[in-house]
Structure formats: C-alpha cells, structure tokens
C-alpha cells in the first residue's frame, strides 16, 4: 500500500490554480486522491471500501491481470504520443479500480500538475467492475511559474463493465506555452454508463484530443460534454467519438465552444453499427472576438434501425437577446455575461452535485474575468 503523503507546500497562486481544476487540498469532499507533480507521484490513496487508487507502477506490480488492460484499448503505435509514453521504462500515471459492486459518493480527485519538466507523461487505467459506480474529477494544471513551455502526454483507458458506471470530469488550467495531448478510449459493456465531461476555460497553447467510446454491451450509454473557451494564441482541436456496437446502445456528444480570438476545431463522430442504436451530436459555438470555430460533426450509419442526428451552429451573440435583458435593467456587460453563462450551462444528467458544482465553479471563474 502506498505511504500516505502530505501535499507539499505550494505557492498560494498555484494552490488557487489547483483549486480551480477541482483539487480539494483539504480532501474533505473527496474520497481519494492521486497527485502527480511533473513525474513525481506525491499521493495515491483512497478511503472508500472496494475502490483502489494506485500509481500505475504499483498497480502493475500488484495485479498481474492488469496487463490484460494496459494498451488493449489504445494502440501503442497509434501516434507519436502513444509511442513516447509506451517507450517509458518508468511509467507514470494512475490506476483506479472500483471493484465489483463498490461505489463512491464523494469523488476521487486525480491531479496532474506540470511544473518544471519539459514533458509530463502519464498512463492511466480506470476500471469499474460489474455493478460498480465510480466518480472521478481529474484536474490538470501547470504551475504559474512555468513560462518555459512544456507538454503533457496522457494515455487514459477506461473499462466500464456490466451494469457499471463511470463519470470522469476533467478540468484543465494550463498556460499559453503548454501543449496537451490526451489519448483516451473507453469500452462500455452491457447496461454500462460512461459520462465524460471536459472543461477548459483558460489559455493553452495547443490541445489535441479525440476520446473514443466503444459501446459493446446492450443498452450501454456514453455521454460526452465539452465546455471550452479559446483565447488568442490557443488552438484547441477537440472531438469525441462513439461507436455503437450493441442493440440499445446510445450516445450523446455535446459541445459548447466559445472563441475569444483562438481556434477551436470541434470534431464529433457517431458510428451506428447495429440496429436499435441511437446517437445525437450537438455543437454550439459562439464567436465573441474574431477567431475560428470549425465544427466537423460526423454521423455514420450502416444498418437499418440506427437513429443518428446532429446539430451544429456557430454564431455571435444575438443583439435582440442582449437588449431584451437590458430592458430588464441589466447593463450590456451583465446581459452579455448572463447569456454566455446560459450558453455554457450544460447540465449533465447522472453527475453528482459535487461535480456539477465544480464545473459551474470553473465557469464562474471565467465569468468573473469577463469570459
């Protein structure tokens, strides 16, 4: 078992940055914690019965069967990022296992903090065994002193077994000189539910990710929700994909994207491979200042009996909406912020209150700085 370690002293500014991505340093509202700073595993512990939070290395040593999960969902040869992580002799990252029937009310927090290293690499495996329910908040941030550039390479493999559920809420707070390359895939079995939420309201040099959920079990569900703001100099190439391979499987991919001068490429792909499947893809974009929102929704059906739909809209704030609120006494800035706040207000069904509040809090921070 890992030795419990205290979170080291951080500057108040960095503590604030961690708090903004959902890291509860008091740990009062979290049932477990994983903290990796650069390549150092600072903490990996969980107090919830039936749920383990381990460093990747510890987990591989403890459970021989984990080799049946590692790199099974994502190919080592997928791209330069996967090859780089796969080539590491000392793999980092975490493994979270919710054993059969276990569940956590308070979420587990997993924090990946990039301070001085050039590249932070992690390989995460998250498993919810049959009937388990697992809620995780993953906060990724760079130090306020970073300033020299850096990159985060993250491999995440999710396994949601029969009747199990995972909600994974990822909040990013990088900086203008950081590049981020998550590579993520999940497999959802019969009646399994996978909720993946992504929030990034702060600058980042570049982020590129296209997580994929493969729904192999009957009546399995995947929901991806992304709320992103792109500032000048940021390029965000984001997407999510759901492959519906079993009857009754359904997927929903929802994105709210705002550019304040940066570039957002919002991809989405639902592939209905068998009858009795449903999927909906929705991307709404707001251009507040000249930037780019490039929405690429793809729906692909190859059999009778798959129902897929998409809607994508990119535009500016409507003047009549702003003036409507102004006629109620709100000034133009208040009216604008209220409408943007509404635009970003994606309520995710099945998400615990604590996590929804954390998403709302991230938007609050952006709202206070005028979006």
């Amino acid at each position, binding site marked *: 078992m890992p030795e419990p370690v205290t979170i080291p002293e951080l500057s108040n500014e960095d503590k604030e940055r961690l708090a903004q991505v959902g890291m509860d340093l008091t740990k009062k509202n979290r049932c477990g914690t994983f903290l990796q700073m650069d390549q150092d595993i600072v903490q990996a512990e969980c107090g919830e019965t039936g749920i383990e939070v381990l460093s990747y290395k510890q987990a591989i040593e403890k459970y021989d069967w984990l080799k049946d999960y590692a790199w099974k969902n994502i190919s080592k040869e997928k791209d330069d990022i996967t090859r780089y992580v796969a080539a590491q002799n000392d793999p980092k990252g975490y493994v979270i296992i919710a054993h059969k029937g276990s569940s956590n009310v308070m979420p587990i927090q997993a924090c990946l903090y990039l301070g001085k290293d050039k590249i932070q690499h992690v390989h995460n495996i998250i498993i919810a065994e049959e009937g388990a329910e697992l809620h995780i908040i993953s906060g990724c941030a760079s130090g306020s002193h970073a300033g020299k550039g850096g990159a985060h390479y993250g491999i995440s493999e999710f396994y949601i077994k029969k009747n199990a559920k995972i909600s994974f809420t990822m909040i990013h707070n990088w900086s203008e000189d950081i590049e981020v390359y998550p590579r993520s895939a999940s497999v959802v079995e019969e009646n399994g539910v996978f909720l993946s939420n992504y929030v990034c309201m702060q600058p980042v040099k570049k982020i590129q990710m296209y997580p994929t959920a493969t729904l192999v079990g009957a009546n399995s569900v995947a929901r991806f929700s992304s709320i992103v703001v792109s500032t000048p100099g940021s390029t965000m190439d984001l997407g999510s994909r759901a492959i519906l391979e079993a009857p009754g499987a359904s997927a929903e991919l929802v994105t*709210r994207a705002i550019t304040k001068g940066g570039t957002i490429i919002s991809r989405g792909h639902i592939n209905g491979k068998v009858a009795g499947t449903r999927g909906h893809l929705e991307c*709404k974009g707001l251009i507040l200042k000249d930037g780019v929102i490039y929405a690429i929704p793809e729906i692909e059906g190859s059999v009778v009996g798959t129902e897929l739909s998409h809607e994508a809209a990119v535009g500016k704030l*409507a*003047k*009549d*909406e702003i*003036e*409507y*609120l*102004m*006629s*109620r*006494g*709100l*000034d*133009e800035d*208040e*009216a604008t912020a*209220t*409408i943007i*706040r*509404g*635009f*970003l*207000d*994606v309520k995710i069904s099945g998400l615990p209150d604590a996590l929804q509040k954390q998403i709302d809090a991230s938007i609050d921070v952006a709202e206070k700085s005028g979006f």
Partner: protein
Amino acid sequence: MLQIKNLSVNVGDKEVLHDISLSIGEGETHVLLGPNGSGKTTLLMTIMGFSNYVITKGQILFKGEDVTKMHAHERAQRGIGMMFQRPPTISGLKLGKMLTAISRTKEENIPELAKTVHMDRFLERDINKGFSGGEIKRSEVLQLMLQNPDFVMLDEPESGVDLENISLIGTTIGGLLEKDKHIVNRKKSGLVITHTGYILDYIDADKGHVMCDGQIRCHGNPREILKEIKQRGYKECLECRNP
C-alpha cells in the same frame, strides 16, 4: 410620467414614426390602437430604447428627465418596463436565472412569486423555449413583477392567450398598474397595445389613441374608440382616411 415630443423614428433607412406626441400622466393608463403595421410596437420599442429604432427627431421625457439618448438598461433602471409580444428565446438561459439577474439584490422569493402566475414549474426551462402563448405572457408578467416598473408598456398582452390565462394575466397586470388602489393614490402608469380590448376589463384605461401609418391620428375614450373600430374597422376611421 411620460412625455413624447414630436418624435420621428427610423428603422433602417425608412422613417416609421412621424412626429409623434403623447403625454401620459402619473397613475394613468393609455391604450394604443391601430391596424397591423401602423407603428404601435415600434413606438413601444423606441420608448424602451432598442437600438434598431433610431430617433431622428424629437424627445422622450420620463419623470421630467430627457431619456432620448439613454440605453435600454438606463431607462429600465429609471422605471420603464415592457411586456413583449414576441420576446426572444435564449438557449441555455433558464427563466429562474433570468429572474435572479433581474431581482439583483432584492430579497424576493422567486419560486413563491412564480407560483402566483403558475410559472414555478418553468424556472429551470430555457427562457421562452417551447413556451405556449400564455406561458410567454406569464413569464413576461413575472419578470415585470420583479422589475416593478413605474411605467409599464404592454404589447398585446392578450394575444395567443386563452380565457383562463387572460383573467390571470389581466389581474396581475392590474396589480402592476395599481388598479386596486384608489385613483388618487395610484402612481403607476401604463401604455397598452390591444386589438381585442379584452385586457380593458382588468386595467380600467383612461385614454385611447389610434395610430395609423406611423402617426397618432385620434384620441378619446378607449372603449368608445374600440367600439367604433369593431363596428366600422380602421378603414372607416375618418381621420385615418383623411389625415
């Protein structure tokens, strides 16, 4: 309360209102009648301060202050309020959030207030999205209840509303206009656009005006004007035909 002096208004390149003058005293409620497209809504939107309605001539005075060049929120903050006929749908913005924003620091119990106009179940709905005619009006009147304006403009408050809702909306509007108070103690004023006149059963209007082709052509007792229009139509309005 409100004085409009020789007001001309452009929408785009076209002059839509021509040399309008109107005065509404404290505690008075006036009714604005006129055929579709005559400029009634334009007048209300101009008084509210919507930017598409450009004042090219004239003045709007509210409580003695010149508000002609003020933005909509400045007018609202001074006590002008409006019930829209077709308010926009704002995707994602919940009615409850909108009401909270309107109420600002006021200690209002929004759910309780919403119950009085049967809108408590709508607080978590996107504002106006999929609302029926009656629901839109009830949402509008609820917002006005929080705003509590001194001068209330109502753009066809009964349009698209069933009889049961007209009673509820009419009574609530009557409350906004302090119709329950003795005429001497009444401080709130109103300007109401109506085609059917059903709303007159609840608001006890003082004066009526008929607008044709962007001009106010005649004034008088609102019920008498309405009766005349119902019998003869606007085409028969002599002053309308021969201004």
